[in-house]
């Protein structure tokens, strides 16, 4: 139970239930779809990118608590960031979930996103936590292909 609470922290449960930046974004100029066929999670991510800066973003779709919360917190963290910073943050986030031991510096850089560090102990769920981020990369790349994680 205790390490389950580590995975399902209050912040994650909250964002899973009440995702932020959720809904349509008519003025978006970038968009990508993400799909995890294993669990049926599907999201659409939309961005307003101007002069290399992510000015606004939102998402729609359905998924597990981990994937919805992760995408929700991602949107919060990225607003106002440059494209380069957004991609760098993805690298840090991915590193936290997959590399041996994230350094305190890395965790600090991730700020609120560090609540997902517990996902590292559930390798099957890493895809859930990164679906939104992979979709972000596709949107930044302006790739029309659906992102599929499995």
């Amino acid at each position, binding site marked *: 139970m205790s390490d389950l609470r580590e995975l399902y922290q209050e912040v994650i449960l909250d964002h899973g239930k009440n995702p932020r930046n959720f809904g349509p974004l008519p003025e978006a100029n970038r968009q990508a779809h993400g799909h995890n066929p294993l669990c*049926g999670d599907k999201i659409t991510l939309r961005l307003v990118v101007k002069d290399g800066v992510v000015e606004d973003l939102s998402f729609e779709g359905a998924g597990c608590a981990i994937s919805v919360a992760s995408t929700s917190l991602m949107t919060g963290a990225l607003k106002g960031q440059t494209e380069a910073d957004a991609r760098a943050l993805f690298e840090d986030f991915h590193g936290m979930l997959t590399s041996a031991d994230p350094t305190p510096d890395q965790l600090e850089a991730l700020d609120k996103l560090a609540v997902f560090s517990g996902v590292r102990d559930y390798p099957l769920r890493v895809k859930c936590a990164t679906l939104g981020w992979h979709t972000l990369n596709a949107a930044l790349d302006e790739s029309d292909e659906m992102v599929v994680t499995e």
Partner: protein
Amino acid sequence: MNETTPIITKSFDVQAIRKDFPILDDLMPGGKRLTFLDTAASAQKPQVVIDAMSRVYGHEYANIHRGVYHLSQLATDHFEAARRKVQGFLGAKFDREIIFTRNATEAINLVATSWGHANLKAGDQIILSEMEHHANIVPWQLLRDQIGIELVVAPIDDDGVLILDAYQKCFTPKTKMVAMTHVSNALGTITPIADIIQTAHDHGALVLVDGSQAVPHMHVDVVALDADFYVFTGHKLYGPSGIGVLYGKEDLLNAMPPYQGGGEMIATVTFEKTTYADLPHKFEAGTPNIVGAIGLGAAIDYLDTIDRDAAHAHEMALLAYTVEQLTAMNDVRIYGTAPEKTGLVSFTIDAVHPHDVGTILDHDGIAVRAGHHCAQPVMDHFGVPATTRASFGLHSDFDDVDALVAGIKQVQEIFC
């Protein structure tokens, strides 16, 4: 177990059965008892199956149908004995009507490819049900895309029961085949397969039955059913993975071209012309899964030692108990409420994704399946992306259900 637990039949001693499955003695991470509720995905193996396979590998192994030496003869005898066990298990007339494949998927692909190309032309129709496993959808779609046949889907109602009126209306003079599951893996529904076959035959169509989820739970007699093709997969029947079965009526199989070419399936080969071996070898190109087939034979022997009527009564008692417990919980919905079901419960918990349910249950050593169960049309019918599925095996007991119920309560505690 609480007071409402039904009385179990005396002749089925589930605690004795549990001793046959070595994995049930193992502890899961955190020292948890294993609550294995995913037999519908793949069954655990009884010790006798494991022993039969290691005995062949250890002492009786050689390639079959080739060597003139003792060991090759021994392995061939065991392999062919396994075929006769499957024949007996399905009630087939001849052992040559039993073709060993890799799994149910390959058996269906064999029929779709070999029978399909030889017998169908553009515009011909095949009827499927809405609750087929992807293995009984995609091979027919491949054929559709290759030769332009049409797939007609017979719908299910909101209990997950095939709507027989609608099924009958699917037939046209162009209907050539019905490909239908005997038991739905996502819902547990048992289809009235004898009637389904009769109706198809009345319309001059053949029937392929996907029995993957049926044979572990009930006695099947392909002759009494008059099934034209009947497929199942070994790993769900307490046998090893990598072995499956296609039963086909002899005259149908004889008229079909080979599926794959290679060794074992030929009579004579020159570069000008090859003549094919007789059944069943015509459809068993290359070295087969020798030990897998023998393991499957051992699984059938194991099932023969069990009073299957008593096992069925036990399974139905478990199912009733589970449904009663889950129905009494708030915010839990069950999908698949057919009157005729196997021991399987597909459910969702409001506002909690099945993947989260699966992770939390896993934490207590409870293994369930969370996902679309390779039956996305069923998920679409009920408007859910996925469900959590608990499915019973011979070794399942009331403690397993109690663990599941406690696990669901914990999920709800975490999520509300």
